């Protein structure tokens, strides 16, 4: 039953783009380098092609297998299963992180009186319904909804043109390349490296030859959008405000006199968070079915979402912690999941392939 699901490459592009952008606008770790944030983003963007290209290559070497299946395949039943559980934890944790950052944003900016847990809980109901319907529904809904974020950004961009001051990006490289490189590394893991999750999704794409191209189109879209947003924020707000404000894009939209445009951002965030959470939980569900040799994930949707929501509340005590951990801890925590294990998989897959071709030629 699992294997009858199919999504097209167009849907893959949108899903991947929406997923990667996700909550990176809310939890923006490039803030640390103030007016050079855009440089950090460009650097991490370039490396993202390499990183994600590696993930696609892994999928090519292990056709029609999801990440969990690859892990069991390559590392054997015991270690493979242990690593799978670790990855399932990573997917769950990531979904909780996004629930948390999204509901913190809504709680601080939009609904200050509503208790945050209720915001999370009510948002999750709609997400559950999408999951129960399946990946194809999620993909199609995302296709339609994903038009909102880029249009919102364009609207904000046009309105804030007059208020942009290009000299705000000066002095360039004020603190040197070191902080910028450190932040680039962070940006590479969050948001770009999270695309490792797509190793659970690639098996559902109908035209597998086009996956690399689709992924690169996604990355290009994400990079351009993030750079535009970053530059816009820097030029409108100036370096000091970038660092002091939690939510730069929102602040930019309130500085522009005239119409109130920040609701656009709120809706965009909803769409992006939804896509990202969907992919996280969907990967988690598929992983569970594969780990336990079941043939359907649908019964587990609600319990998993409840655990995810509950975990999101448990994770931190306040917003400051959330930002701090994202900045200082998350990049390193993600290394095994996004770099170490995938590289090992890559090497072993290559060795296996060589082994196979040798045995077929003899």
């Amino acid at each position, binding site marked *: 039953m699992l294997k009858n699901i199919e999504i097209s490459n167009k849907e893959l592009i949108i899903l991947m783009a929406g997923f990667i952008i996700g909550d990176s606008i809310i939890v923006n770790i490039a803030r640390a380098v103030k007016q050079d944030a855009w440089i950090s983003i460009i650097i991490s963007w370039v490396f993202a092609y390499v990183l994600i290209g590696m993930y696609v290559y892994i999928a090519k070497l292990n056709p029609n297998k999801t990440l969990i299946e690859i892990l069991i395949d390559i590392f054997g039943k015991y270690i493979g299963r242990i690593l799978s559980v670790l990855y399932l934890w990573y997917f769950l944790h990531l979904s909780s992180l996004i629930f948390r950052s999204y509901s913190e944003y809504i709680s601080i900016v939009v609904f200050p009186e509503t208790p945050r847990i209720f915001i999370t809980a009510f*948002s999750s109901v709609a997400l559950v319904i999408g999951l129960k319907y399946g990946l194809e529904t999620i993909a199609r809904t995302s296709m339609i909804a994903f038009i909102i974020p880029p249009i919102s950004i364009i609207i904000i961009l046009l309105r804030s043109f007059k208020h942009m001051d290009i000299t705000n990006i000066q002095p360039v490289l004020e603190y040197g390349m070191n902080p910028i490189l450190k932040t680039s590394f962070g940006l590479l893991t969050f948001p770009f490296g999270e695309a490792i999750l797509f190793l659970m999704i690639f098996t559902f794409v109908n035209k597998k030859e086009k996956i690399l191209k689709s992924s690169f189109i996604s990355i290009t879209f994400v990079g351009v959008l993030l750079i535009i947003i970053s530059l816009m924020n820097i030029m409108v707000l100036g370096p000091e405000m970038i660092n002091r404000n939690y939510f730069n894009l929102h602040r930019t939209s*309130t500085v522009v006199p005239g119409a109130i445009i920040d609701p656009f951002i709120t809706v965009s965030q909803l769409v992006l968070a939804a896509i990202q959470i969907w992919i996280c939980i969907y990967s988690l569900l598929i992983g569970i079915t594969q780990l336990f040799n079941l043939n359907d994930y649908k019964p587990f949707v609600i319990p998993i979402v409840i655990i995810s929501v509950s975990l999101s509340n448990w994770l931190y005590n306040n917003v400051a912690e959330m930002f701090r951990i994202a900045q200082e801890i998350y990049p390193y925590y993600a290394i095994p999941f996004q770099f170490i294990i995938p590289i090992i998989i890559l090497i072993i897959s290559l060795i296996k392939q060589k082994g196979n071709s040798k045995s077929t030629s003899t």
Partner: protein
Amino acid sequence: MRTILYKVILTLIIISILLGTTGCWDNVTLIEKAIVLGIGLDKIDDDTIEVTLQIINPVSLSSQGNSSGSTNTNNVWVHSTQGDTLFDTIRKQLQTVNRKPYYSHLQLIVIGEELARSGIGEFLDFFERDQELRLAPNVVIAKDTTAKKILSAKSDLENIPAMHLMEILLNDKSDFHIYNVRLFDIITSLNFPKKNPTIGKIEIKEEVSELKIANIDVKGAGIFLEDKLIGWIDDDSVEGLNYILGKVQNGLIIVKDPLNEEELVTIEQKRSDTKIGLNIEGDQFKYSINIKAQGTIGGQQGEDDLTNQKNSKMLEKKVEDSINKKVQNIVDLAQNEYKSDIFGFGEKLYKEYPDYWKNVESNWEDEFSNALVEINVDFKIINSGLIDSANEIE
């Protein structure tokens, strides 16, 4: 699966989604909101401040229909409260205002002179943190009067006085003597070390029992050192300041006719562009203010032909001198009398030569005063309206 249980659960789910995601918890309907358009801050004594809110009175507005306020009794309601900190003084408003103040449409912030002199920094914190407040409202300082009085003034043209005042401020594009600044600009000025804001001035020109906006003057500006008001600058200086900051576009320049000192010519400037350059020679900072503008002859008192080559050039020189003088005026004031960097020269140094800035930052007041400032004005008269020479009255 059309059991009753199924339907009940489905309904519950739909209701819960609607309840939770559309913000019903936070729901404050429009009727329950008091839309604040203008806010005024005054200092009463060392510990007390007074906050005045100008709130829309929707009942009165809707009953008047579309009439533009000639019988404008109470389209807005003005109310003041006193307290120790800004937040709690505003909360006290709830003791009289029956609705919760809603600031997202705030247009104007008026600050009383006394409060401005003792420092506005602490109040800006409230404005920055609150999520309903946008940083876009315009700010003015009330000279020789209180913000409370200014906000109580009535308008003959607009339903809402605060909007009227705000729109006057927006005329700064066409009148050089108005200085308009947003809350955002003030906050960023204060953020940057040694950069000081200038805020537009508002004052009562004639005292009458029922104060109207027609009795109020919006022009001139107040100079600040950090967050404290230290002095006022007059119209000409404001014109110079507007030129330096590149805030002028369309405005009038009146000069003496080059051929006849007794008569005046009115030039209408169409556009202008200011570029500030910075050069460092040894220890000396050299700033250059380069203004390029163009305009047309709006009117002349005399009858000479000012459009021929020679006369035109003389006229342009007169205009350039006039602008030059005004810019020089404000530069002198800022450097010598007030020692306050209101132009952002320090910020420019930081952006282009960050290492130099690090060295002089702590001493910037003196460095700023000693910086050499060169002013270059280039004005072109592009046409003279529909006629080329004045009507010779014979």
